[in-house]
């Protein structure tokens, strides 16, 4: 009996230690952001203040960087969701000849390191005269997440029974209307999953805008926060922490609201068989 009890406690103990290890580095950011005299050591603020936040928020450079970040990530998310829905639909419904090969290619592209193609992408942007263009960056970001979007969306459409849209066609609905009014509403969880993943990935993406954009006025938050770190990072820990918290906020909020929808997106394993 005693043995049994220890056996039950051990997993809880291990998990608690892991949880603490995961949370301590982040707690430092939270505490430091409210601390008037923040240092690198985690400590509860002696002098609680909102000054760090005020100085970050009131800077027009920071406001601009956040707006550009929202524009890029929001635009990319919308484009990926719409294009993925369109592309995944025939892949799910229509008996294409080389569907399995196509899906394996998509899976392959999903995990291909984007880093590896950034040098040629930069060359492509020079060639197309798109360097330092927000729209060009938006298109490339969309392409980079499209395979992932198509893969997940196809898995979700596979789960929607075909009877409903067939019934809609008999009632005279067109394909697009069937997709928009019948299929899309049934896969809100899938759309959420894709949106959240794409937005989080895009919002946190530093490398792509760092390479493709040059004008200081066009840089999104992910790049300006890096510059802030370089310029003031070792002097103004409190401000850096507050900036970090503000920058992390959108992804954490989105994740919090969407977490119930997300688990379904991870049944990726068997689906490779097409």
């Amino acid at each position, binding site marked *: 009996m005693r043995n049994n009890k220890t056996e039950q406690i051990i997993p809880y103990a291990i998990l608690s230690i892991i949880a603490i290890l995961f949370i301590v580095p982040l707690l*430092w950011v939270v505490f430091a952001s409210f601390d008037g005299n923040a240092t690198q050591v985690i400590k509860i603020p002696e002098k609680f203040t909102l000054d760090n936040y005020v100085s970050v928020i009131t800077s027009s450079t920071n406001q601009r960087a956040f707006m550009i970040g929202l524009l890029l990530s929001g635009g990319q998310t919308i484009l990926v969701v719409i294009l993925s829905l369109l592309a995944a*639909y025939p892949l799910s419904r229509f008996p294409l000849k080389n569907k399995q090969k196509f899906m394996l290619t998509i899976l392959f592209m999903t995990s291909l*390191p984007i880093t590896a193609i950034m040098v040629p992408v930069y060359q492509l942007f020079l060639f197309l005269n798109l360097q330092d263009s927000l729209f060009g960056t938006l298109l490339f970001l969309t392409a980079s997440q499209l395979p992932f979007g198509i893969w997940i969306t196809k898995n979700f459409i596979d789960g929607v029974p075909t009877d409903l849209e067939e019934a809609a066609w008999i009632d005279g609905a067109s394909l697009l209307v069937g997709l928009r009014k019948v299929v899309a509403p049934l896969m809100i969880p899938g759309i959420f999953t894709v949106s959240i993943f794409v937005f989080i990935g895009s919002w946190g993406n530093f490398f792509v805008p760092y390479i493709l954009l040059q004008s200081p006025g066009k840089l999104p938050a992910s790049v300006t926060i890096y510059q802030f770190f370089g310029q003031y990072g070792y002097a103004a820990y409190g401000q850096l922490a507050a900036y970090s918290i503000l920058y992390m906020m959108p992804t954490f909020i989105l994740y919090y609201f969407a977490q119930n929808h997300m688990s379904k997106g991870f049944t990726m394993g068997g689906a490779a068989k097409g």
Partner: protein
Amino acid sequence: MSTENALTNKRIKNNNNSMLRKTFFFLLPSLVILLIFFIGPILMTFLFAFTNMSLTGAAAQNIEFVGFRNFVNMFQDPSFKSSFITTMVFLILSGIIGQQILGFLLAVLMQNKNKSFRKFVGGTVMAGWVTPEIIVAFTFVSFLHDGGTLNQFIGWFGFEPVSWLFTFPMVSVVVANIWKGSALSMLMFQSALDNIPDSVNEAAKIDGANRFQRMMRITIPMIKNTIFTNLVIITLGTLGVFTLIYTMTGGGPAKATSTLPIFMYEQAFVNYQLGYGTAISLVILVIGIVISLLYIKLLKTED
């Protein structure tokens, strides 16, 4: 009566198929964007890796094919060799071993646990995944700093402070990457474990299989598809890690953490040798392609 029904069914089916044929056009916008911005750069990698393309100097005007010169230079370049080894160490320690095993351990330990406890632990691990790479870098730079939290903590036990980022740069970036990425493995293994029916494990228990035997003989074989998929995603994801290392150590000290992406960035955008930079990207790409094809093949033959 029944033949009539079958005929109607067949007609509806044909009707639906001709309807669905039109959906082929739905693929077009995605295909165009992928061709220009994804497949295009991949093909360009293969092409430009054999040129002397440069951002400055004479080679910026006239691009010439130089055959395998970039590759000959690369294989003679000691920085490339050390960068290659650094990449493999980072990949194996942080991705294949670190994230995969920690993710699996978390998923196994969290099975059948109290629901709010599961939620709490899962939440802390997910926090790492949700945190943008650049913030992970700042956080760990502060955490590991000479005057940071970790040194304060070991100070309680009488240890002298350590300059973690200078003394153990690789360990530092490995730990940060495990912290950042383990959630994905955890979620994938959780969902795979949830799909194993309880009856399978119950039956094995009745047959007298112990915990270890059940893990090796039942659980792992049943989730092997997930393991392979996870390996592909982690390997290729880790291979491309740039931001975390670039912002934590900049590839240093003395190139100790200069993985191939960092090396590529320096050659292409700091030294302006785009041709050489592309040759390095080609190496990353080819490693990625080989590993990915290998896993996909394994996944198919194992079925």
